[in-house]
């Protein structure tokens, strides 16, 4: 599913360049659930950006393969299509589109993901995932009316509703208390399992470490 070799990503500042991430070799099998650990600034988010085809300044000799595609060897629009169809993101800071309802947020994710479902099928899938995440009663409300935990669950629903091959989550539990942190992590694992998605979670939150079979310690590689 994922294979990275000889990766070096640099941050360019005004007059200087500093290393953000270096990775000699990393491989993740399809369907695996991997935790990327490391302190703040260790390059976890950068790694997730690399996987999503969002990184700039990666070295010429790097080899990155995601979902069988080398995202940095294809055009920008093809990279957009790869991300739209095969990769689901849960960002560090939950951000839903406040102008539209929870249901419409999920429908938008489906459509942007290139699904060609009929509206009735879309509704069925939306209702199912909202029920699974215990959000049925929030279907028609705007995201501003959700609690932090509810918004987090909607963000996860939005990332998985298109049933991506790869699900990426960046610090999904950092802003949550213990109970909610475990609940959110478990939810990610459950939904990834349910849809057969490969899951990569970047965090510095040790509370959820025990839930994952595979880990990558970014701090150790720097």
């Amino acid at each position, binding site marked *: 599913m994922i294979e990275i070799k000889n990766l070096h990503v640099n941050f360019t500042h005004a007059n200087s360049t500093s290393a953000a991430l270096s990775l000699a070799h990393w491989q993740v099998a399809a369907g695996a659930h991997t935790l990327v650990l490391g302190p703040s600034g260790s390059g976890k*988010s950068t790694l997730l*950006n690399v996987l*999503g085809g*969002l*990184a*700039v300044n990666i070295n010429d000799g790097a080899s990155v393969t995601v979902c069988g595609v080398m995202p940095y060897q294809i055009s920008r*629009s093809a990279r*957009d*299509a790869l*991300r*739209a*169809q095969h990769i689901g*993101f849960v*960002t*560090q*800071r939950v*951000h*839903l*589109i*406040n*102008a*539209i309802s929870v249901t*419409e947020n999920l429908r*938008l*994710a489906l*459509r*942007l*993901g*290139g699904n060609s479902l009929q509206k009735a099928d879309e509704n069925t899938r939306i209702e199912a995932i909202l029920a699974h995440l215990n959000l049925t009663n929030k279907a028609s409300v705007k995201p501003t009316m959700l609690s932090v935990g509810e918004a987090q669950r909607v963000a996860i629903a*939005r990332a998985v509703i298109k049933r991506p091959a790869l699900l990426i989550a960046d610090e999904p539990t950092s802003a949550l208390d213990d109970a909610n942190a475990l609940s959110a992590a478990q939810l990610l694992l459950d939904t990834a399992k349910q849809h057969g998605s490969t899951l990569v979670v970047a965090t510095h939150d040790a509370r959820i470490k025990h839930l994952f079979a595979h880990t990558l310690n970014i701090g150790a590689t720097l």
Partner: protein
Amino acid sequence: MNTIGTLSTAFGLALAYLKQRFFATVLNILLLAMGVATIIVVLLLTHQAQQAMGRDAKNIDLVVGAKGSPLQIILSSIYQLDVPTGNIALKDAQALLKNPLIKEGIPLSMGDSYRGARIIGTTPAYIALYGGTFASGAVFTKPFEAVIGARVAAELGLNVGTKFVGAHGITQGPATQAHGEHPLQVVGVLAATQTVLDRVILVNLETVWDVHAPPANISTTPVSTKPISATPVSASAKSPAKAHNHARDKDHDDDHDHDHESDAAKKNIGNNLVASDDDDHKQITALLIRYATPLAAAILPREINSQSALQAAVPAYETVRMFGLLDIGVKAMQAIAIAMIIAAALGIFIALSQALETRYPDLAQLRLLGATPSLLAATLAIEGLLLAAVGGILGIALGHIGAAVIGGMSAVSNQLQIGGLLFLPMEWAVLLGCLLLGVLAALLPALRAYRVDISKALAAQ
């Protein structure tokens, strides 16, 4: 996602974002609508006024009246909007009509009105001039018979057979002196022509003269003087016994004099004016002239103005001159309207730019979800387009309402039958201009949305 899917999604998002900032959206739309409405009102008023004046002056090459302002002669004699400059002697008109350069001359004698509708003494040729046909009844054949225009019939509820009493004066407002002893009877109602014919009451010339004939017992009444009249009060000066005292009052500002003739002396005039001794004392207000040859345009007005006590006024020239005078005001209004529209477009630009500043996290999320840069740009462009379209359409609707209100409020615009129902092709251009401004206003924000850097936007959250 195909193009239709992209546009459909962008449209849905644009609509949602506009609804989200409802107050700003409404203000943007109203600002644009007011500018568009102003332009539409100016367009509708000027177009309809020009059209109405063009129709009313059609087939009239020259108007001859008493010495005074040519424009006033045109406004009073053709459009029935102003007061006449005075009267002219019938014998002068008769002499003029002998000129071979004149094909036809239609006399007009004005001075009375009925509930705001002017009563005009003339000949059937006046009806023919505007292609008038009868909806009911027929043309007047003897004194005190009246033919009424379609609009007069509708607004005043007059029908064939109805009797009414005209009043002295031709201005709007209450009449001060009714001619109760000389009721007029409607004998014909004209079909609508969309010309001045629709809003006047027509009688023969003898009616005008008879209505103002003095009763026998006041035959020694001191003669009337017309301080503003350009023509001598010939009847009073020469024949006090026949004179009719037209005490000038505020409402009687038409400066006409009516000599009083015996029935035997009454005669029809028109393109076959025949002089008689009695005609020496008669007056009319104006003469509408059609040339026999285009050459007359170069000769006749100058000849009349230089050699007689008459004033010649060329409708085509005076109308152009009048609109030339009004043009400064029209252009000023248009400039203000355009400035308002540009300000509205700037308002849209500012609103979209501000929205974009707060929308970067949304844009980043949308890109993560698979939105293409084109979709983000299209969303902003559609927002600008929607604001412009709604503002433009609302402005056009308001402009038409405004024109209808102005048409009903002002006596002059009411006379010119100005309304809000006409749709001008130019209005499509105004709407298109609005849409273009909307797209231009959204262009820069749309480009910025297109270029949004996802990783930077996510990092900035």
